[in-house]
Structures are given as structure tokens and as C-alpha cells.
């Protein structure tokens, strides 16, 4: 198992964000993490990526304890946060160059250009990020998240605000990444068609607890993913 979460608890100012979270993700999965707004999805990702600490519980990422070995974890993962900002005064090439240094990945310009081509930014390498559209920035964010060739990639609402073509392109990119490189993808979203198209396994979180988890096809049965989601989060939407 590449992610193993046991009894994770996190409180913010008296509000319980995570209330004894338990789940696991196998290597090579595209794992959908679903839940209504405020259910605890982003908090979970921030704990799993060693940005914030939990009040209690255990998290192992590829065998490393997130709380005791955060740097070891950060070397094998990467993430695209929900509201990812950019250094708008940089070019895409400079942006990737900056982050590759932080990962000790001495990427050549050709390598970062290839990454930009892979995410569909061919010919835009030397443009200032401030001239990019929202969709282009999202692609650049994904390129940044691939800079260290992560074993595990966390994506928080990666297709939010994109047009249908932009969403389709991102889907294709993630599927290719998973098939070609075996990258495990942890996809947090509330867009059910993203889950349907991409994920083989899911977990549904509500009020900081996992209410259902398993293989998507088995869980759906003959119903739809919408039925499954609404049944699981009946009183949870905030």
C-alpha cells in the first residue's frame, strides 16, 4: 500500500475537520477522494503531503511516517493544490527551473521544455505566466507537480473552472501518466464525471469520516456514481 491512514484526527479552533479517518491506497491506483465542500478533503491532502500536522493518528506514505520523515515523503510525492498560485513574472521555463532546483533535479532546459510539451504548452515555454489563461496555468501546475517524477501525485480539484476541452485534456494527461509511468494518483474532487472517467477506486468523506471506500465499479453496482455519492453524503453537504 502506498498510502496507509489510520485514525487521523484534526481539529481547527474547536471544529473537527477530520474525525478518525481510516483508508488505504494501493500503488498504481487512480484513487478518487470525494466529498461535499467542507468535508475535509483539502485538510487530508495537506496532512498527507506533510504541510500540516494532525492532532493524532498515523500516516505512512510508501512506508515513511509523514510526521517523522516529512522530507523523505516530500521527495517521492508531489501535489497540485486547489488554489495554486504562480510567480506571474516568470516564464514557464523559469518556473519549472526554479522548482527543479528545490527538488535537486538538475533539469536541463530541454527536459523542462519536454515536460511543457507533454502538458500541452508547446511554444509557450518562454511566455510570461501572467499572459497564460486559467487552463494553461493549470497545465503548468501539473508540469510543476511532475518535476520530480513522483511515485504519488496529489491533485486537489485539478479541473475546477476549466472548459470541457481543458478538462478532457487533463483527463487524458493523467491517464497517460498513470499508464506509462505507473504514477499513483490521489484525486480529490467533487466533480463526479472526473471520478467516473479516471478512478478505479474511491473513498467518500463526509464530516471528516470515510463513509464508503472500495472499487468504483463494485460500489456503483447497477446504479450511478451520483446515486452512490448522494446516498453516502445525504446530510453532509455544507
Amino acid at each position, binding site marked *: 500500500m502506498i498510502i496507509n491512514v489510520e485514525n487521523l484526527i484534526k481539529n481547527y479552533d474547536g471544529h473537527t475537520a477530520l474525525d478518525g479517518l481510516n483508508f488505504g491506497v494501493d500503488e498504481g491506483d487512480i484513487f478518487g477522494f470525494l466529498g461535499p465542500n467542507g468535508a475535509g478533503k483539502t485538510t487530508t491532502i*495537506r496532512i498527507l*503531503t506533510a*504541510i*500540516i*500536522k494532525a492532532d493524532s493518528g498515523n500516516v505512512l506514505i510508501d512506508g515513511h511516517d509523514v510526521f517523522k520523515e*516529512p*522530507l523523505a515523503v*516530500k*521527495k517521492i*510525492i*508531489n*501535489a497540485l*493544490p486547489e*488554489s*495554486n*498560485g*504562480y*510567480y506571474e*513574472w516568470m516564464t514557464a521555463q523559469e518556473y519549472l527551473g*526554479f*522548482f527543479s*532546483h*528545490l*527538488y*535537486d533535479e538538475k533539469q536541463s532546459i530541454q527536459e523542462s521544455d519536454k515536460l511543457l510539451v507533454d502538458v500541452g504548452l508547446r511554444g509557450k515555454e518562454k511566455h510570461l505566466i501572467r499572459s497564460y489563461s486559467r487552463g494553461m496555468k493549470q497545465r503548468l*501546475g501539473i508540469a*510543476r507537480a511532475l518535476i520530480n517524477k513522483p511515485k504519488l501525485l496529489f491533485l486537489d480539484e485539478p479541473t475546477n473552472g476549466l472548459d470541457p476541452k481543458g478538462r478532457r485534456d487533463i483527463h487524458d494527461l493523467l491517464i497517460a501518466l498513470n499508464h506509462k509511468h505507473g504514477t499513483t494518483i490521489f484525486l480529490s474532487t467533487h466533480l463526479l464525471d472526473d471520478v467516473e472517467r479516471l478512478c478505479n477506486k474511491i473513498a467518500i468523506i463526509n464530516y471528516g469520516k470515510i463513509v464508503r471506500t472500495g472499487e468504483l465499479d463494485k460500489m456503483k453496482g447497477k446504479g450511478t456514481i451520483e446515486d452512490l455519492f448522494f446516498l453516502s453524503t445525504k446530510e453532509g453537504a455544507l
Partner: protein
Amino acid sequence: MKSAYIMQKEIRESILTPKGFIWYILTSIILSVLSYLFLTNSELSLLDQGQMLYLIMNFITALGVLIGLVFGADAFAGEMERGTLEALLISPLNKMEIALGKLGAAVTNWGIIFVISLPYLFVVGKGGQNVLIGIVYLAVLGTLLAVIFSAFSMGLSARIKSMKNALITSFFLFLLAGSPIFLSTAIRGTWFGSILDFINPFADAINTFDSVVIDSQGFSYQAGRVAIICGYTLLSLWFLKRSLSKLEM
């Protein structure tokens, strides 16, 4: 080593965006006006070279502190508000490495201001005594003050998480630091004024410049004040480290 990349990024941002560049332009303009007034205004030109140099040194120090505060306040809260902090925190470097890179950039900005001010210092102090030793004191104490105020402001930025509030609190800190200057000579002469002067790193620096440039006193007279400033430098770095442990998204 990774701090160096953060520092490089911050310095490039200062040069390529109005955020930092405006300070350099402003410094040049204000120093030009001040120097011109000192040398041409009939009343100001009556001041001797030492006093002119002392006043310019005070101004440069205040500017260095101010820049440190602005850069410090932006360090974490600004990145958080622009949504760029999370990508940095996901990267395999610890928070102190990020902070040291940003602190290095704030001190470099002070260095640039200092270099810009050098010709003005030489022109205004020309023919006077203690010009060189005054500039050495300005370089050393100015750098320490830039570290102190940047680190305090950066710590506040990590704790408060709002650039506006971090900036307001930092400016309040700046006014507090500069408060002895606004006190009358009579109050400064009392035990209260003396203590306020002594425990205030900004006032310590200003009084040291006065003692070195105008009164031509040696290092033994400055040692106490320099020690206080060094103490504040360590305190500010400790405060920054403590604040970073509380930094959460």
C-alpha cells in the same frame, strides 16, 4: 543550499517587479534631494560635515529597516495570499530554509540600498572626519538591523497570515523602535529615556553613529550598544524559528 535558490528567486522578483525596484528609485531620489539641500540650502549648509553625514546615515538606516519590514511582512502572508506558498511547502525543504532564503533576499535589498547611498555619503561627508569609520558602522549595524526587523516581521507574517495585518503590526513596531527620536532632549536625559534608548536597537544604532561620527569616540564606547543590537539579532532569529513552527495553511 536550497535557501540560495529561494533567495535568488526573491532578489529576481525585487528587480523584475515594482515591489522592490521602486525602493531603489525612491532611495536615489530622496538621497539626491537631501544631499542637494545639505549642500545648497543656506541654513542646512551651516551644519558641519559630521552632522550632515550623521543625518544621512540615520535616514539610510531607517530606510533599510522599513524595507526589511515590508519584505518580511510579505514573506509568508503575501505568498499565502497569492496562493504560491503551498507549492513551496510541498517541496522537500524545511520552513527555516525558505525563511533563510527570504531573509537573505531582504538583507541583499538593504545591501543594494547601502551601495546606492555610498556616493551620497562620500559627497556629503567630504572633508569631514570619521567618514570611513562611519560608513563601516553603517554597513555593520545597518545589516544587523535589517536582519532584526526582517526576521521579526517575517515571524509576524507566519503567525498572522494576513499581509495587511502583518504590515500594520510591523509598522507599529517600526514606530515603537523610532519613538526615542521623537522624545524631547529633556525626557531622553531622564532614567526612563536612557533605558528606552538603551534597549531599543534602532536608537542604539543611531546613538552609535552620533558617537562615532560626531563625537569621534572609539569602539569601547560603542561596545554596550553593539552588544544589545547583536542580542536583538539572535532574539529575532529565535522568534522567527518559533513562529515558523506555528505556520499552518
